[in-house]
């Protein structure tokens, strides 16, 4: 017991005092939080629009007024020629421009639908598309209000379950907690043995009475604690900061998180056992970690991959954890469904930790 305690203290102090480990532990979560809180969003805000109003009738006036007061628009440029309009788009001054034809008000007054030409900057296709969406909503309102008697026939109404407004963050943030925990646990553990080998302390450890399982345990625990802490922090931010509804079981999710990290720790220790230097270990961690994230179903659904890769994806702990964490957040996943993804995690953890023990032992050539 004293051997284990001594090693545990040593590991924790090493991680906290090693600038490299500290950076791995503390910088990514803060960055992620900042990026997702303030930068990464698919909504469009603060754009400039140009309007060429050839009509100056009641409806066109109404439309322009609404544009002026729309929250997503920063400034409306009023121009007097189509050439000027194009020029503004060419120079990237505005993201979209409205060309209101001379018969716009007349057409609406006559009960027909008034047509407005919208020019969009295709170089910013994504934001442009969304802007067009906003603009058509405004235009439709004008048309509807002006001719209140023409109720538009309701088209197909799409209802998105679990994430009714398809909020981007609802989908991304829970998954991020898994990715964050994956990388911190992977890097901490892959550095741990390699660091000792560089220092020469690993030999010192091997001649001491401590056994290989003790070394593995003492190196797993701090990574487990830090990985769990980071995962929980991110989940807390998801609920507290981003107001993402959490509808599942917290305790089951916590158990899954810990099992997930244990399986990653095993992989990290395997990388560390075969690396001679910390550089090799970091390279190893990234060359395992990045493909693991890409194949886990975080970015693209596992079902869209070739069959062979689908099988391989089952061996990636993140694949299973993503199912659990997304399910727990958005759709109150039932314990039965969680268990179905939990046992593969347990199996991967068992295999990877056993392999890590064998790798460490096998390094004694």
């Amino acid at each position, binding site marked *: 017991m*004293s*051997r284990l*305690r*001594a*090693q545990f*203290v*040593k590991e924790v*102090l*090493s991680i906290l*005092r*090693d600038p490299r480990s500290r950076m791995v532990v503390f910088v990514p979560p803060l960055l992620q939080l900042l990026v997702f809180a303030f930068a990464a969003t698919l909504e469009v805000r603060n754009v400039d629009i140009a309007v060429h109003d050839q009509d100056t009738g009641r409806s066109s006036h109404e439309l322009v007024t609404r544009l002026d007061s729309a929250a997503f628009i920063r400034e409306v440029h009023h121009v007097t020629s189509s050439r000027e309009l194009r020029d503004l788009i060419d120079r990237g001054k505005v993201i979209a421009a409205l060309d209101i034809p001379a018969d716009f008000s007349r057409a609406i007054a006559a009960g027909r639908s008034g047509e407005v030409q919208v020019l969009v900057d295709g170089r910013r296709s994504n934001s442009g598309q969304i802007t067009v969406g906003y603009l058509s909503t405004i235009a439709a309102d004008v048309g509807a209000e002006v001719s209140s008697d023409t109720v538009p026939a309701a088209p197909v109404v799409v209802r998105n379950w679990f994430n009714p407004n398809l909020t981007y963050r609802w989908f991304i943030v829970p998954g991020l907690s898994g990715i964050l925990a994956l990388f911190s646990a992977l890097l901490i553990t892959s550095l741990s043995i390699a660091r000792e080998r560089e*220092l*020469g*302390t690993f*030999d*010192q*450890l*091997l*001649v*001491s*009475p*401590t*056994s290989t399982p003790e070394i593995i345990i003492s190196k797993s625990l701090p990574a487990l604690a830090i990985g769990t802490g980071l995962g929980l922090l991110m989940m807390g931010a998801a609920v507290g900061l981003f107001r993402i509804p959490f509808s599942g079981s917290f305790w089951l999710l916590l158990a899954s998180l810990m099992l997930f990290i244990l399986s990653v720790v095993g992989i990290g220790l395997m990388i560390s056992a075969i690396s001679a230097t910390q550089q090799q270990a970091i390279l190893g961690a990234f060359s395992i970690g990045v493909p693991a994230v890409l194949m886990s179903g975080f970015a693209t659904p596992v079902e869209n991959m070739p069959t062979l890769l689908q099988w391989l994806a089952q061996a990636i702990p993140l694949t299973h954890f993503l199912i659990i964490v997304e399910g727990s957040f958005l759709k109150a996943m039932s314990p039965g469904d969680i268990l179905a993804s939990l046992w593969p995690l347990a199996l991967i953890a068992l295999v990877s930790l056993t392999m890590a023990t064998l790798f460490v032992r096998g390094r*004694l*050539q």
Partner: protein
Amino acid sequence: MPVNGVSTVTEGVADSKAAVVIDSVTKRFGSVHALRGLTAHIHYGRLTGLVGPDGAGKTTLLRILTGLLVPDSGRVTVAGFDVVDDNDAIHVATGYMPQRFGLYEDLSVMENMRLYAQLRGMDAARNAGLFAELLDFTRLGPFTGRLAGKLSGGMKQKLGLACALMARPAVLLLDEPSVGVDPVSRRDLWRMVQALTDEGMAVVWSTAYLDEAERCDSVLLLNDGQLAYDGPPGELTARLEDRSFRLEEVGERRRAILAEALNLASIGDGVIQGAGVRVTLRADARAEEIQALADRTRARLAAVPPRFEDAFIDLLGGGPGGTSPLAERLPPVELASDIAVSCRNLTKRFGTFTATDNVSFDVRKGEIFGLLGPNGAGKSTTFKMLCGLLKPSHGEAHVVGLDLRRATGAAKAQLGYMAQKFSLYGLLSVRQNLEFSAGVYGLEGATRRVRIEEMIDTFRLAPWLSAAPNSLPLGFKQRLALACAVMHRPPVLFLDEPTSGVDPITRREFWTHINGLARKGVTVLVTTHFMDEAEYCDRVAMLYRARLIALDTPDALKRGAAAPPLADPTMEDAFIHLVESADLTDSNHGERAA
């Protein structure tokens, strides 16, 4: 004009043109004073030894001389050029061979030489003759096609020297050229340097080996950034005339006698030399006490010629006492078997390279057993196999009757191990490192507290407890490493180059501890490349090119090398003798096979 107060010129004619003039040079790195107001002259046609323990400031001074570092204050001129103002001229006038010469390992010997000639902007037409001359001089002729990476340590140094000599410098600066070089190549290097000084070149040879100082024409002895002595080595050694003695043939009792002698007020320094004990009297002390000790132990007291190392220790105020507080506290060691460590046909191959070849020996309980050999001879590999850190390709190794690779934790606690490289946790403080070692060896509660306090007390670590190990002076690093290795009181101790790079006073302190532990029955295996340290061992195994070429007591090994020109051979002579006869047997075998 020479600077006041310096009297380096000992010959009748004062040559006003010194090759190097160093005038009150200081250099600091952060809070570390590397050089503290150094003033000295170096002359043409002489071999000047820049001598001192690691960290004394040797490399800093050499780098200032080559214009690679700028001194904080003071002036230096080399071959008449100021190192700061005429920096470009310095590069032409000097040849510099750093500790690790920048050879391109994937280029052949010839390609390396050609590259350095081109870097020096030399005329290709002239090269052929010069190259032939240099190759002949360094005896590298047969190896021109070999890749530099495949050369032995000694051959690399010789190639480095050839490259440094390419531009015919007026001043040649060699930074620890003999480190990692086997004694035979080392002798070659001396021969070459001698030939260069005879031509009138000024050669500076920096070294931490004090025995090398005796071979120099003049010595600058550095200690802690200050000049401790400047002059011919013989003059310094002469101060010790009639103060060096040897208690002859005390055999088994030598460790007890050394401990007793070192505790005498009149004795400044003492070491074991084979079956004898060599002591040095303090300045103005009389030989009565040591004579009394000799009479009481019925040993013969003989006057011996002083050595440079004796003089250095004397200059520093004498070595440590003879009692090891570490060993004092240790209860006598009990071991089940009389054989503490044994190996049979131990072989280790890395690919096609054989690092250890068929080595067998037994180490008795309580013995100090030395593994001696140049770098790359297989000492560390053999050591690691014994400790269970490497799996032998063939043969077996046992410590206290156990194969440590398969041993349980309890069995491993029988072993204390101090690695060659300083290997403690740099991110933990000194105290946390001690706590860690105690914990890993299962010390708990009161025992743990007491042992840690013992270590702090014994090795005087108290002022450093919250410091990071990497910030400690080298001597204290080694003390801490030893403390961590012996805290659990192992009956068998493995020390891999424990005194490498340590100043001579700390080395003596280490050997006081090792001797004390051995007297309590602790078995000590130690590797060293300091030939004189082998004298402390009961038996020495000499390794050369992966093979065990001799195994005997130091005295017997020395006797084997005694031939008419060498009446009283040193360990180094013995080693060269053994290596040469091993090479001879090899070539005979080769001829017979062919």
